[in-house]
């Protein structure tokens, strides 16, 4: 408490002014003292960058040779000309096997297409007699049926003679690393019109592409 003796009006004013000055000085002092005890924070930033290489590959699946029998060559060495439907060597009805496995791997995050076409160096061979069977592919990373779409229902269809899309990738196929999507093919030949003892060559081209 501060007491002022009653004096002249001017003395009162001066006293009040002094009191104000003292209070202001005290406030500034307190502020300065307190300011030095405030928490301090300083920051800096850096950019962190990394590049992941693109993977877009196709290969023959050879990891299960007992189930997927062939890769670059599918032999038909014992065809019975009396039949209209001949499997490749070592194959039979409903044997649970396949002739060729095509493994497609990508991390592009884009829709891709598996396309096939066939050609022959034997002009008298009718490619319409060369049949293929493609079941719904298998996503090996998810260990589940692939979520893409077959262009034709699974059946014995004639091999296309021009580049034709057989399978369109689904959402999970767009990035199917690390193990990829496996498409398994089986083949069969109708030997009608073929000459016994003669060798026929058929070339099948598999293409994985993002171009529709």
């Amino acid at each position, binding site marked *: 408490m501060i007491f002022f003796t009653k004096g002249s009006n001017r003395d009162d004013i001066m006293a009040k002014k002094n009191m104000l000055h003292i209070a202001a000085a005290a406030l500034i002092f307190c502020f300065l003292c307190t300011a030095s005890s405030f928490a301090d924070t300083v920051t800096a*930033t850096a950019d962190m960058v*990394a590049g*992941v290489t693109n993977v877009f590959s196709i290969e023959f699946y050879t990891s299960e040779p007992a189930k997927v029998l062939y890769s670059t060559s599918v032999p038909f060495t014992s065809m019975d000309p009396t039949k209209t439907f001949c499997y490749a060597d070592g194959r039979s009805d409903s044997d649970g096997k396949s002739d060729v496995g095509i493994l497609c791997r990508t991390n592009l995050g884009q829709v891709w297409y598996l396309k096939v076409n066939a050609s022959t160096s034997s002009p008298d061979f009718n490619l319409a007699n060369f049949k293929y069977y493609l079941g719904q592919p298998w996503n090996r990373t998810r260990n589940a049926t692939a979520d893409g779409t077959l262009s034709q229902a699974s059946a014995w269809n004639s091999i296309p003679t021009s580049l034709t899309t057989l399978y369109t990738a689904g959402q999970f196929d767009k990035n199917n690393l*690390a193990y990829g999507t496996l498409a398994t093919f089986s083949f069969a030949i109708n030997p009608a019109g073929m000459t016994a003892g003669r060798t026929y060559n058929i070339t099948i081209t598999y293409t994985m592409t993002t171009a529709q």
Partner: protein
Amino acid sequence: MKAYMNMKRSAVVAIMALSAVIFVSGSTAEQATQDMYATVTINKVFSMVLDNALIDFGYAQPGDTIELKTSSYYNEVKCQANKGTTWHLKIAVMGTITGPDGNPVAPEIFKWQVFDSTGDGDPVKDWTPFSATPKVAYTSGQSDMAGREALVRFKYKLDLPKDATGGNYRVRVLYTMTDNP
């Protein structure tokens, strides 16, 4: 009369002696004292400097693990404070990691650790996944609080998942030095 004269002479001598004392005392050196107050203000220091603001892992295959500078550190943060309070150096990512398909990527694929420090504080030397929440990488020691410069050196690692989408990944790293616990 003679006695009176002797008394008068004695009085004069006494007066002269007193006057001499007074005179002598008046001529002694004057001495005055005055207090002087010296104020020394030590400026507060609380600063941090980062020496390399680009953490570049280059290109990697899906499934790869890349450690930048395996036998050394990648960048260092120079911290200095003299407030006498414990401070922390924290590290975090700002926002989400932008992947090539625009989808957010878990920041845990990037990791950090403190390689070493010149201070007397407590560094985190374990590999620690990045997160959006700042994590303490270094806590100051006694010398660090008293104004001595402390260099905190960081290493970084990238653990790419096997199904990493191809393309570029980018994120901003935030370093924070604070005495706010």
